[in-house]
């Protein structure tokens, strides 16, 4: 694909921002240069502090020149003490006039009878509220009234957000740190690239990304796919001619496809290519618009798969050469049954005891369980089934009626209402999730399709993936694992809901990944419509949060307390393709847009 102008700030060998030997003085000089550049921009207004609305270390206001337009989330710079510059994020714009009351306006218009234009329009001005991001000389005295205010340039935005420090780290440590995350509209027709700090996305400082919102068809998925591409391409970027210690060849990616066949063509280029505007954005971010490279699709078996060879997925399935079909036989599933039963109420722990009994018997190779090989065997011939017919309590504690309940639920899930993934024996050539995940290799992307599965089956598959990963990375002595593993899952609220109690097998596994993942090298990129619906310990561990349009009732939930009220108001009005990005390095969230993925999408 033809490359256009690339972002000169990051990512090329030819134009490092500052030489690797840059010292404090050089960086200070760089900051002075940016301060000077900021002062050359067109003035859009002056800071304003009043008796009732003073400026503070955290915020300031400025009035705008007549006809000057700004928008919420534009980033501005204000002159400050000692030649320093304070950067701030516009959070709201208000129009005020010299009218003390609406009644005065009514009276001013000839007691409401006048429909013509006023002879003299009332004096009014637009005033923007600004949340302070940073000052170039760490001066957090309030911005003084009458200070000149301008749109920040791209370098200023980077300085204000802390991206400049990322670039510095990148140069000093000679490894890629800046992960392109989207473009910020600067308000003056220009854009600035937003970057994430790799240490806060992939560890060790923090990790994980949460994407929420009702922003539109496939927006969250598209953004996740863009971000994964961005991470992988960033890892392959050389800094000062040096490759990173961890490249994309050391990273495996597991993507869970939960809707239609959205992610079942990620290795295919979009037909007709991307629109020029999207290509420009990819280029602007220093990235190559391309489909995913080495992709393996892991597709669920359906009821007819054994006969037809066709997996149970939406649309045309991916080519067989890049696909494998997974299913669950009883012997492959006995230690994951707790995940399958995640959503079944078990107030007294009887189901948990029965599941423990089964697992223990199989793992210990108990003699009376040798004949239990299939789901049918479990329900008809197992020692459990005997308790049901004999009426004796299991271990003198669990009543036959509880065992009966267990069988009824199990029968419904694996026999009567199953989609086809539960099989008696795994046919030759088929795989299991556990095996597929255990075989992951760096440099490859694995797409696990669960779109057509029932909810309990989806939970089983995702739980199986998470547990297998955890076992691989935290508990096994396997040494040839990819150094980083990225998992993307949509509808995380189904697997780690906020409403679920503390005791839940799948929740425990997800919490382990979210809390220990950054040190293990396992990165969770999760999406859901409502962040409040996800367990707070999971979202809390996602250092980077991305928010699409969100309705106001949702924004009143505790999960959004980190946003100020003005920002929340604007979140309800975000357009499709617009997202709000929060990152530990940024003092305030920024609004970004991002290019559409380059791979083929069905919708």
């Amino acid at each position, binding site marked *: 694909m033809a490359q256009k102008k690339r972002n000169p700030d990051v990512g090329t060998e030819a134009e490092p921002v500052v030489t690797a030997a840059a010292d404090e003085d050089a960086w200070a000089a760089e900051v002075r240069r940016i301060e000077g550049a900021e002062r050359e921009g067109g003035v859009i207004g002056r800071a304003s502090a009043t008796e009732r609305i003073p400026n503070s270390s955290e915020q300031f206001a400025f009035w705008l020149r*007549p006809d000057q337009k700004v928008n919420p989330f534009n980033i501005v710079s204000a*002159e*400050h*003490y*000692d030649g320093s510059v304070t950067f701030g994020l516009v959070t709201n714009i208000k129009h005020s006039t*010299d*009218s*003390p*009351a609406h*009644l*005065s*306006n009514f*009276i*001013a*218009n*000839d*007691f409401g009878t*006048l429909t*013509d*234009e*006023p*002879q*003299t*329009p*009332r*004096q009014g001005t637009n005033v923007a509220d600004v949340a302070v991001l940073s000052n170039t000389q760490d001066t957090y005295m309030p911005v*003084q009234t009458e*200070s000149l205010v301008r749109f920040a340039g791209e370098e200023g935005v980077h300085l204000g957000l802390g991206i400049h420090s990322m670039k510095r780290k990148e140069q000093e440590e000679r490894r890629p740190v800046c992960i392109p995350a989207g473009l910020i509209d600067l308000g003056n027709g220009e854009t600035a690239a937003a970057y994430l700090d790799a240490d806060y996305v992939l560890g060790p400082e923090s990790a994980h990304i949460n994407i929420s919102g009702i922003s539109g068809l496939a927006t969250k998925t598209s953004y996740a796919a863009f971000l994964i591409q961005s991470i992988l391409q960033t890892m392959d970027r050389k800094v000062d001619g040096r490759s990173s210690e961890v490249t994309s060849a050391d990273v495996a990616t597991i993507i869970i496809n939960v809707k239609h066949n959205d992610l079942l063509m990620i290795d295919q280029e979009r037909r007709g290519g991307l629109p020029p505007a999207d290509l420009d954005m990819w280029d602007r971010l220093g990235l190559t618009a391309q489909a995913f490279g080495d992709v393996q699709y892991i597709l669920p078996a359906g009821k007819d798969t054994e006969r037809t060879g066709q997996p149970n997925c939406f649309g045309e399935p991916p080519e067989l050469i890049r696909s494998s079909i997974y299913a669950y036989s009883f012997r492959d599933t006995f230690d994951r049954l707790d995940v399958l039963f995640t959503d079944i109420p078990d107030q007294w722990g009887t189901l948990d005891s029965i599941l423990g009994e089964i697992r223990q018997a199989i793992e210990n190779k108990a003699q009376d369980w040798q004949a239990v090989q299939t789901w049918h065997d479990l329900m008809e011939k197992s020692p459990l089934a005997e308790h049901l017919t004999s009426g004796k309590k299991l271990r003198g504690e669990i009543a036959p009626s509880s065992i009966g309940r267990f069988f009824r639920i199990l029968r419904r899930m694996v026999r009567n209402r199953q989609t086809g993934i539960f099989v008696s024996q795994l046919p030759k050539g088929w795989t299991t999730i556990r095996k597929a995940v255990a075989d992951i290799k760096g440099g490859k992307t694995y797409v696990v399709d669960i779109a057509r599965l029932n909810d309990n089956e989806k939970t089983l598959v995702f739980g199986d993936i998470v547990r297998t990963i955890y076992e691989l990375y935290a508990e096994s002595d396997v040494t040839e694992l990819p150094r980083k593993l990225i998992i993307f899952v949509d509808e995380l609220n189904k697997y780690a809901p906020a409403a679920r109690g503390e005791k839940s097998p799948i929740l425990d596994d997800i919490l382990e990944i979210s809390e220990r993942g950054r040190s293990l090298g396992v990165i969770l990129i999760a999406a859901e419509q409502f962040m409040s619906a996800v367990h707070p310990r999971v979202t809390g561990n996602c250092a980077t949060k991305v928010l699409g349009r969100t309705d106001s009732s949702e924004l009143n939930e505790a999960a959004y307390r980190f946003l100020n009220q003005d920002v929340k108001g604007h979140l309800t009005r975000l357009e499709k393709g617009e997202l709000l990005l929060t990152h530990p390095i940024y003092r305030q969230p920024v609004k970004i847009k991002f290019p559409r993925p380059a791979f083929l999408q069905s919708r």
Partner: protein
Amino acid sequence: MRAPSNPFASLEPALRALAESMDVLPATGQAQEYLQQFDTDEVYDRIRMAEDRLVTRIMERPSSELYVPLAPLPRAEDHVFRFFLDGAARTFFLGTLVLRDNSTPLVLAQVGAAVVRREDDGCIAKHAGQTQMLFLLDGSVLPQGVWDNLCSALNDAPGPLHLRAVDTSKADDYNNSPQLSTREPRSKTRHRANWEMRLLEIELLRELLTTTPEDAGYVVIDGGLGKEFRAWTGRTGFIGVVKNFSKDPVFEIGRGPRKAVLNIFQLIAQLPVNHRTLAFAADGGRAVFWYVRIREQGLLDYPLMGVVKVELPNPHEEVQESALIDRLSAALVAERTVTPHGRDPRWHAHLYPISVAERVIREGFFSEEVLRAGIKWPRLQEIAAQ
């Protein structure tokens, strides 16, 4: 950018010059804003109309109706008024200077005048402006040496702030008039500040009239026209608009058996909205004046509200065309939108661009807080001990 410093620091020598020569009774808590005690508009109009208490001469033709109907004339149709001139004064009582049996209040005044220009789209822009800071005191109380010391201390004061000492005992156009009822020293000082403001207005108006062409549009001046403009022979095209006018005139309309005598209450109370009165002569015909009701009586508290008095200079003492008076009046009626309602008790007769001009001036004044904090008498006890 640097932190602000005390803008009044340079006044210390001037205050010291006074404190060293006279006893000072300082205002408690330093400078105190001295609020207006009387309605200056009405008082000054009464002074100007002192010779015209009986109004008999009609100064327009061909109209002879007492009340003339008008249709509001919006600027989109005919942009009559382009410039608006106003002045503002803010005074602060600093203390009383005592020398033997005599005393004088010392008042610091900020006075200013501004012209705002209205563009084709109705938006207002500042055209010109001037402000001054004054030390107002009765010079007759001070020994000449002290006065000289004060003046040289003010002249020599470093920094951007320049003050001028003004002797309130000196005569001006108004202060010896019997109509200016007040003889109270502080009120006289306040009047003097207004007069200095008036001088600034006059200066700005002269400059405006000499630098703009005849067709640049009418200038509206807040308040009546003094004698200096009634006799003005330069570019015409300005009027004075008085919000609160003298209630003294009595009008004798007509002759013979149909002659009617109306006091101003009778004249105004019956003036319907969107109407003007006949135009009359003042100052021997060198000014033409009439009244325009710009607001419906029923919507206001008092019949005399919502009416403005208009003065047109007439240096050649000519009878004016009714069409001109109609045009000016109709344009004034259109000025009723928008209003400074809620910000000014005189809103019903206030022209909004005039209030904007006033605001332009006042925004350039130091606030009371700054004055209170910034102006400090030198340590009086130390001076007394020396």
